[in-house]
């Protein structure tokens, strides 16, 4: 499985920081706002290199979203940075009215999403954000898989006209997407073709799915693996093409089962091609403090859970 060679280990938030720094050098319209988490979001390089285009707003996320919406009037492209919880739930109405409904070209960049924020606990571990953001008309929702893809996605969304929610995280994880890979919003990456089961994953769960795939293939199961980095607009064609071959699906995400990637995939299947689906995600519960990887195990979003779901869904076929 040479194509999944580990190229290094880094956090996805650092991919955002590098992408934003590159945008700062190449696109004079990009401005960045941060709510007292510059270091955590890896926005320091942009700030140092472009002090006149960096806006420290303090611990006032609602104001940050409004400022960002206003800054688009006059052709600036604002990137807001704070934790995923404070990027969504705390400011949902501001995003809804001032950004999504008002068609404002704001890029909401959200770090420390999901359980892998770790020790800070459930107050900060948002697991509902994908659902909230994908329900908003006009909003594009992107959850890149690793450091390289987060960097590519950060650069790509500056070229996209319209509001975007970009979700990434804190833990150091393997890098397996090539640095020169093409990133296209709304176009799924088929990482491996197979015939027995389709695994559709996003974010940190893509690597977990790569690990699960190795185990499954050793057991003689042929896996098709899709990195669904764009939750909205969803690449329905890629899903239907894949399940047409495999006949069953496992979805895997660091998010509530309710309202996440799995729900979006299920809608596509229900409307077009009803087939067995198993969900790997957090099942209607808040998280807790702990080591990120131990939390993934405890809350059922780890490699063995994907293996188990794949074997189960294959049995449900026919």
């Amino acid at each position: 499985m040479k194509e999944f060679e580990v190229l290094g280990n880094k956090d996805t938030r650092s991919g955002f920081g590098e992408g934003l720094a590159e945008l700062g050098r190449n696109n004079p319209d990009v401005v960045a706002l941060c709510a007292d988490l510059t270091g955590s979001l890896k926005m320091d390089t942009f700030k140092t290199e472009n002090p006149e285009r960096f806006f420290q707003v303090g611990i006032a996320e609602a104001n940050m979203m409004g400022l960002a919406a206003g800054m688009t009037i006059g052709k600036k492209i604002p990137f807001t940075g704070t934790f995923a919880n404070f990027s969504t739930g705390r400011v949902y109405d501001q995003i809804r009215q001032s950004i999504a409904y008002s068609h404002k070209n704001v890029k909401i960049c959200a770090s420390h999403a999901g359980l892998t924020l770790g020790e800070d606990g459930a107050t900060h571990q948002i697991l509902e954000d994908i659902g909230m953001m994908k329900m908003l008309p006009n909003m594009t929702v992107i959850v890149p898989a690793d450091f390289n893809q987060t960097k590519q996605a950060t650069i790509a969304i500056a070229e996209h006209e319209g509001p975007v929610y970009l979700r990434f995280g804190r833990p150091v994880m393997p890098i397996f997407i090539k640095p020169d890979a093409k990133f296209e919003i709304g176009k799924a990456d088929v990482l491996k073709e197979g015939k027995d089961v389709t695994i559709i994953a996003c974010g940190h769960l893509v690597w977990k799915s790569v690990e699960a795939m190795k185990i499954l293939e050793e057991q003689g199961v042929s896996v098709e693996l899709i990195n669904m980095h764009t939750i909205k607009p969803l690449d329905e064609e890629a899903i239907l093409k894949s399940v047409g071959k495999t006949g069953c699906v496992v979805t895997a995400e660091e998010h509530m089962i309710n309202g996440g990637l799995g729900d979006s995939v299920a809608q596509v299947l229900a409307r077009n091609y009803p087939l067995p689906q198993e969900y790997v995600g957090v099942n209607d519960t808040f998280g807790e403090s702990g080591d990120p990887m131990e939390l993934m195990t405890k809350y059922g979003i780890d490699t063995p859970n994907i293996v188990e779901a794949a074997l189960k869904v294959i049995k449900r076929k026919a």
Partner: protein
Amino acid sequence: LYFDTMKIEPENFSMDGIGEDLFFLSNGHISPVWYSILARRGYFPVSELATFRKLSSRLQGHPSVDKHLPGVRMASGSLGQGLSVAIGAALTKKINKDASYVYSLHGDGELQEGQIWEAAMYAAANGVDNIIATIDYNGRQIDGDVDDVLSLGNLNQKWQAFGWIVLEMDGHNFIDMHNTILKAHSLTNEGKPVVIIMKTEMGHGVDYMMGSHKWHGVAPNAEQLEKALAQLPETLGDY
């Protein structure tokens, strides 16, 4: 503002408004007042006012960008958001070295929203001095007098404490308004944001509406409308 002060291009409306003064209505529920001004200033035909709140109209109950009504750059209705937006637009004007101004209008009840004070703190701390915010201080909101619902305390001192230059004016006296806005202009570009507290009377000029909060969210019936219009010599019958 629209007929005397702002540099605007109503016939050539652009979302970005580069080189133009910008106005943001934060208390979106007074949309009929705003639409009436926008139409008469040439943003869209006065006849379109008759479509207000009707299906498929560009004149939504609360202002919307979604329907592409010229003159509107931001949706408002959910309160407390417009000051942040106006300050954001003012920041972009500074980056673009655009010397024009940003104006905003807020309700008094709206100042109960916390985001207003986040924005107020930000603008003063960062010397956003190309904005003039105005407050319609009529002292009434849906459930009663502002003082009874949630008192704003000493509003003038509150804004001063947040670092703003504070002016007051009579919102029914055009000479006072003209002079106060000129004064506000003279105080811009000196490192501080400016706010004008505008004393007004809800239902001004209509005897049965004045002195009460009950018309805040209620439209008059046909008979009441006729009675009200008869009391207002400046009423425009052009739509």
